[in-house]
Each structure stands twice: as C-alpha cells, then as structure tokens.
C-alpha cells in the first residue's frame, strides 16, 4: 500500500468551529450583557493552536482576524494583529498549557485574552477611535476565562469524534 502523504484531515471541522465562534461574536445580545461577551474567536484559535500547533498558527489566526475585522466593520487589521499575537503566545505556551489543570489553564486564558483586549484598545487609542469610558473592556477577558473549560471540553470532544489531526 502506498504511503499516505496527506496526514491532515478534518480541516472543515476547524473552519466550522471558527465560523461558529464568529457567529457567536455577532449574535445580538442585550445592551448590558454586551461587555461581558467572551472573545469566542480567540478562545477557539487558542484551542486549535494548543491541539494542533503544527497546523494552526499565526497564518490561520491572522486570516481569521482579518475576516473578523470585515465582519465587525472595525479597523482592518485590528483583530488580525491581536489574534496573531495571541496565537504566537499560545504557540510558545502550548506544551505547558497541555499539562495545566483547568484552573491554571483558565488563568492563562485570562492573561492571553487580556493581552488581546489591551492590544486592540491600545491600537484604537493610537488611532483615536477608542470610545471605551474606562477599563470595562477587560471584563470580557474574565468571562472568556470562565467559559474556557467548557469551550475546551466541547472542542476536545469534537476533535476526538471527528478525528481531526
């Protein structure tokens, strides 16, 4: 039997989860809940970087961020840069993160998404488009850390069921 060169499969599953995360990001929420919306796309990108670091990396994160910019109508490249940075950090941390307990993973996520938020708002401030009245935009880092264990378990289940490698 000829050796199989193409060892990757399940690309559609990865794309599907990313699209679902993007959908969750633009789903209408009540006004008071909006600031608490977790950064779904960042979470999903971090998960796939952790699970398949040889496959999902800066490029995927950047492209995904680019489409998020178009989706949200924000400054083109804003999400792209922030997501690429998060993917880079996750790439350098993934071996440790795999060993972590749920609490430790969640705190790492808190920091990663916090960096994502800070970077986005720094860029917006530099471009004088920052309209946040205070540091409340950091709340979504906290909510991301809280939902992370469920995102992690859900995506791991999906990865195992569909044998994404």
């Amino acid at each position, binding site marked *: 039997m000829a050796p199989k060169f193409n060892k990757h499969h399940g690309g559609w599953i990865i794309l599907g989860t990313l699209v679902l995360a993007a959908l969750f990001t*633009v789903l*209408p929420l009540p006004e008071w809940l909006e600031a608490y919306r977790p950064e779904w796309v960042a979470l999903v990108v971090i998960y796939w970087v952790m699970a398949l670091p040889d496959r999902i990396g800066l490029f995927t994160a950047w492209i995904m961020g680019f489409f998020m910019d178009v989706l949200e*109508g924000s400054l083109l490249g804003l999400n792209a840069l922030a997501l690429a940075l998060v993917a880079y950090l996750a790439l350098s941390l993934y071996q440790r993160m795999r060993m972590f307990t749920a609490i430790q993973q969640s705190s790492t996520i808190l920091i990663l998404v916090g960096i994502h938020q800070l970077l986005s708002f720094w*860029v917006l401030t530099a471009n004088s*488009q920052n309209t946040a009245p205070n540091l*409340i*935009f950091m709340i979504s880092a906290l909510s991301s850390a809280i939902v992370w264990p469920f995102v992690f378990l859900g995506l791991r289940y999906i990865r195992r069921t569909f044998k994404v490698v």
Partner: protein
Amino acid sequence: MIMMLADSRFSYLSQVRFYASYLVTPLHWLADSPRTISDSVNTNLQSRSYLIAENQRLKQQLLQQQFELQKLEHLKAENIRLNDLLNASSIVDERVVQAQLTGESPDPFTKRVLINKGSMHDVYIGQPVIDAFGLMGQIVDVEPYASWVLLITDPQHSTPVQINRNGNRAIASGTQDSLQRLVLNNISDTFDVVEGDVLVTSGFGGRFPAGYPVGVVSSVVHDPGEPFASVTVEPTAQLERSRNVLLLFK
C-alpha cells in the same frame, strides 16, 4: 500594522473590505435569522380578532395623517413660494428607501448598526438614515448587500442642530458615558435653551437635510464653576427599538 495604517489614513483597502464582505455577510444574516423567523411566525399566527382590531386602528391613523397631509401640501406649496420670493433654493421632497436592521456592532462602546441595503441598492457613504420618529444616523461603510450606520448617539458622531422654537444653532454629540443621550457642545449660559425644546437638523455641513427631528432637551444645568452650560438631549428616534429604517436619497 501597515494594513491598519493604510485603512485608517487612506482608502486603498476599501475595495479589499468590499469584496471580503461577500464572504461575511451571510454570517450576519444567519445571526439575525432567529429574529426573522420569530417575526414571520408571529405574523402568521396572529389571531383574527387581533388583526381586525389592528386594521381598525391603522385606518384611524391613516385618516388622521391624511388630514394632516392636506394641510402639509398647502404649507409645502406656500414654503416653496416664500423661498422663491427670497431667491433661496430649498429641497422639500426627498426620496426614501426602506431598509431593515440586521445586526449591531459587537463592540459595546460604539453605536453602530447594520442594515440590509448596500451598494447594490445605491447606498452611499454619508447618507442620512431616519426612522419614523427622527434622525438615526448616517452610513459610514457600504458593503454589497449591507451597510453600517453610525448612530447619532455614538461618541464619535456630532449632528448640527437647531432649536425649533427660536432657530438657535448648536452641535449635538454623543457621549462616552451614556450611549443613549446626546449633549450640546459649548453652550454659553446665556444661550436660550430650556427643557422640552425640540431640536431639528439645521442642514449645516450639508450632510443631513434640514428639518428632521433629532431630540428633545431633557435637562439644562447651569453650573457657575463651568464655562459652559451642560445640556442633555433625549433622541426622538427609537435608536434601540426601531427595526425599520428609512434611507434618504437626495
């Protein structure tokens, strides 16, 4: 980073965004679909008696408004005549196209909404958007089948207004700390404005046509320690509730 700079300072990338949005617009439709479906289910399951009552009510309203329109026709003609006397040019009639809200910006610190009309329907950047009650905002970004509306309560938006009672002019801006209200900038303490004054667009700046209601003054505070009075305005348009909006074409 270069890309962000290019996007914020120049317009080279608007084409890229335009074509990329072909891929992305379906996601907005999908995100909006629960509302669309529940709307259509609601319409289909309305009871007969409710529909009869609604029909009655709408007929009443139509009659009332037609009565007011009769007077309006006369006033419009008179207005044009008077403007002619003054040698001023003024456009009284504007063409409107109806659009529906399909999404909201996920950023909690801005006030931007998405509508379901885009460049395929000749929407252009800077176009005024109103609802049945007053001015809502203007178009800031056009995609093929959708466009983004910056609402008048966004902190980055300012509207040139005029007090209906006495014609005094001012600038109404959105604020960072409340995304539901407007404030009047640089109002001196001697400026004639009182609670309950109706503000309409002044037509200055050439962006919004004159005469559309913007808001009602909800409070006027004169603080001797401050150089200017602080005037807050409640927008007349139902910015949070309107689903059907109108695009004004010049």
